[in-house]
């Protein structure tokens, strides 16, 4: 699992509340990614980071923000959760010197009621 952990692993929250998901890696990887997985849509990129304080939007970034204040942690925040953000969220890193291969964390299942 490339030393990637995600927390929490499961969360149930209510519409309108802020939610922060954490991705932690132990191998000093520069590139980190947040995806969401939904049936019929596969994996879609939300945001990614190419270094400390360097982040950019993916294809489904509306309603999400990210922060990376240190190499090992990449945080995904839902500013005001909506039911459409009910999903499974995966963090990934790009392996160093491995031809762009990404390795994934175990995922966080988020339910917004």
């Amino acid at each position: 699992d490339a030393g990637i952990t995600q927390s929490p692993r499961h969360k149930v929250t209510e519409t309108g509340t802020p939610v922060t998901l954490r991705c932690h890696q132990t191998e000093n990887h520069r590139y980190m990614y947040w995806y969401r997985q939904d049936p019929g849509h596969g994996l879609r990129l939300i945001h990614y980071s190419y270094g400390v304080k360097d982040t950019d939007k993916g294809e489904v970034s509306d309603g999400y923000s990210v922060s990376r204040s240190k190499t090992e942690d990449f945080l995904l925040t839902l500013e005001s959760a909506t039911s459409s953000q009910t999903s499974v969220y995966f963090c990934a890193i790009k392996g160093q010197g491995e031809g762009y291969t990404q390795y994934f964390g175990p995922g966080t299942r988020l339910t917004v009621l």
Partner: protein
Amino acid sequence: AQSVAQPEDQVNVAEGNPLTVKCTYSVSGNPYLFWYVQYPNRGLQFLLKYITGDNLVKGSYGFEAEFNKSQTSFHLKKPSALVSDSALYFCAVRGPTEGNNRLAFGKGNQVVVIP
């Protein structure tokens, strides 16, 4: 823009029979291609990749994939399927001009191996 198509939602195969999961891609230039597998309630696991060289790539768990540039395809294959191969399979691509090491993933194929 880079993209991947996985035309079949589900593939059913009898145990012991050959398994094929289809993937076609669209990029400008030479692609980097990947296959991942996801078992229930788990993250995606890397299976294999094609960057350059031999068109037949061998990966984990007895899987292989064949890169076909003229057909823009990268089909995943296994000669003899096992029940434990039942999972969700994702194809992914990166085009050579894509910035910041982003991959585009397909929608996934559910593989069901019937005992």
